[in-house]
């Protein structure tokens, strides 16, 4: 049986899966040792971004991002962490100091230089997209090791903007 440790907001749960195939319409999962019945009416539906379940008679509709970092529901949006105990690979590591373009756009201003020390949250540059000037801030303290863009330059999604070490 597959075991996952799932943290939603403040709640931490041990969840056992795999009693039936993943895409079954009726599932039993184990939560902290207890068996819970779950129905999955649209197990085969196309909208992979939104899924819905009936958990012990309560309809639960959710939307989870690709990185499994957030869960959105009609009760609000909550931070999510999934630890896969039967997989060697951990979720992709972030926070290595490489600052990438979170959206495509045009760099209108670069506020730091190579070699400069920055603190976490310090504005690094301004990226214009959708008629908005979007400030890109330092994800962690450190030294600017590389500035990869110039004002006026267009950048693609995930293009390296600068690097902090």
């Amino acid at each position, binding site marked *: 049986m*597959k075991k*996952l440790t*799932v*943290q*939603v*907001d*403040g*709640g931490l*749960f041990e*969840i056992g*899966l*795999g009693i*039936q*195939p*993943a*895409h079954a*319409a009726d599932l039993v*999962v184990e*939560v902290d040792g207890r068996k*819970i019945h*779950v129905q*999955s*009416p649209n*197990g*085969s539906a*196309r*909208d*992979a*971004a*939104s*899924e819905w*379940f009936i*958990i012990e008679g*309560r309809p*639960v509709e*959710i*939307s*989870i*991002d690709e990185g*499994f*970092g*957030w*869960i959105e*529901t*009609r*009760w*609000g*949006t*909550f931070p999510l962490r*999934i630890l*896969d105990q039967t997989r060697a690979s951990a979720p992709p590591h972030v926070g290595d100091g490489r600052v990438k373009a*979170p*959206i*495509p*756009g045009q760099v209108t201003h670069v506020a730091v230089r190579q070699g400069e020390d920055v603190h976490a949250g310090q504005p690094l540059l301004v990226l214009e*997209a*959708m*008629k*908005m000037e*979007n400030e890109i801030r330092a994800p962690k303290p450190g030294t600017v090791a590389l500035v990869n863009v110039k004002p006026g330059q267009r950048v693609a999604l995930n293009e390296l903007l600068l690097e902090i070490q």
Partner: protein
Amino acid sequence: MFTKILIANRGEIAVRIIRTCREMGIQTVALYQSPDRDSLHVRMADECVLLDAPDGFLDQDAILQIAVEKRVDALHPGVGFLTERDDFIARCEQAGIKFIGPPARIVSHMRHKLEVVESASRAGFPTVPRSDCVVNEKDIAAVGKEAQRLGYPVIVKSCRGGRGRGSRLVMTPDRLGSAVRRAQAEALTIYGDRQVYLEKAILPAHQIGVQILADNQGKMIHLGEREGSLLSGNQKIVEEAPSPCLSSALREEIWRAALELAALFEFENVGTVEFLLDERGNFFFTEIKPRIQIEHSLSEMLSRLDIVKEQIRLAAGEPIGMTQSDVHLLGWAMQCRISAEDPRKQYLPSPGYLQSLHLPGGSDVRVDTYLFNGCVVPIEYDPLIAKLLVWGKDRESCRLRLSRALDETRFLGISTNLSLVRRAVEQPPFVAGNYSTESSPALSVEDTADELLLRDLAIAAAIAYWRRRSSFQPELPDRLLSGWHRDSRRLPS
């Protein structure tokens, strides 16, 4: 009445204007730039033209040329873009094309915001306390004295400016000198004129706008006020009408002032007279917006009038045809601005492919949007994708309906500020109707929930994770391409 109107705008406002035109039996011509070629306003119009011009919706020459070629009688600028360009309005007038909005002379007057405020002040209307224009930053002692007289916090503003560019908020005397210097430098760069002045900062404040309709015979009515004080960054996110912070006496007084101010400036067509209200119930006239605003729809819900229809009628020279006593403002309305912004990326714009959307329905819910399933939210334009409005017979039933409508709303494929809006509507100051420009909702993405809900979400997340990671993939394409299969609702278990 006009027979064909050019819509010099895009997105939800273009869709909204086309709807009214169709209901009036007026043909529409839509404009689009290449990223917008598949956009809803283009499909809905009777004709469409590629706006192949470097300045896009600001390109006066190109737009006028299309208007002439397409033989339209009138042009609707929507919101933003060319709405407040009196030079453009004058060119339309010369070309014999009716600009749907006030005449050029009025818009020209309204653009000089400081002059407008000074005229109002001279006529005895309350305006925000301010200094004369300051020409020299060297005499910082005199500036300081003036700031002291107004009382901190103060704002340093360009005498030429509008739209807040080059303005600086000064909380304490020690920051005044540098603020004045920087504001002057910026004013010189932006407006070619370094003159600045000081204005008392009203903090916290309420932003109140009174909707005005005026015909060209000097007849005017108002459709009540709206409050747009709940901001996120500098963006209004939830607005409502009427304002929850006004006593009936104060409300009547502001309505009267709004009509008198509109009359003072011989205002015509549709506009909003804007005020700031401080915590002690003092109100100050700030400006007249000579155009429809994004939030005009709130006043439509209370008055059951179509403001764009009235605007077109007034532009065609028709009289208002009703008196103030014919206007019945009933109940309460709230509006949310839904933007393509990613709360998980500090609300950065989030354009992209909209896989699927589900909009709320039922009684007294209105959605104005240019979205459809499978559309693309282009990166080239502003992130406003939808306005969601509801009406209720009182404030609380309106708010509960809004919550309900927000709960029904789903956007798959793009990120939106929906969760922020939902939180804004639930936060205690908003619930109590006791909020101001300083009551921004927390931008954090986190909500709170009870243990049982968290457990259910953990289960749902675990199954979703398991499915996406599992080697067995549901056969999506097959199902999509071949239509309905009864069996597809349930997979073999």
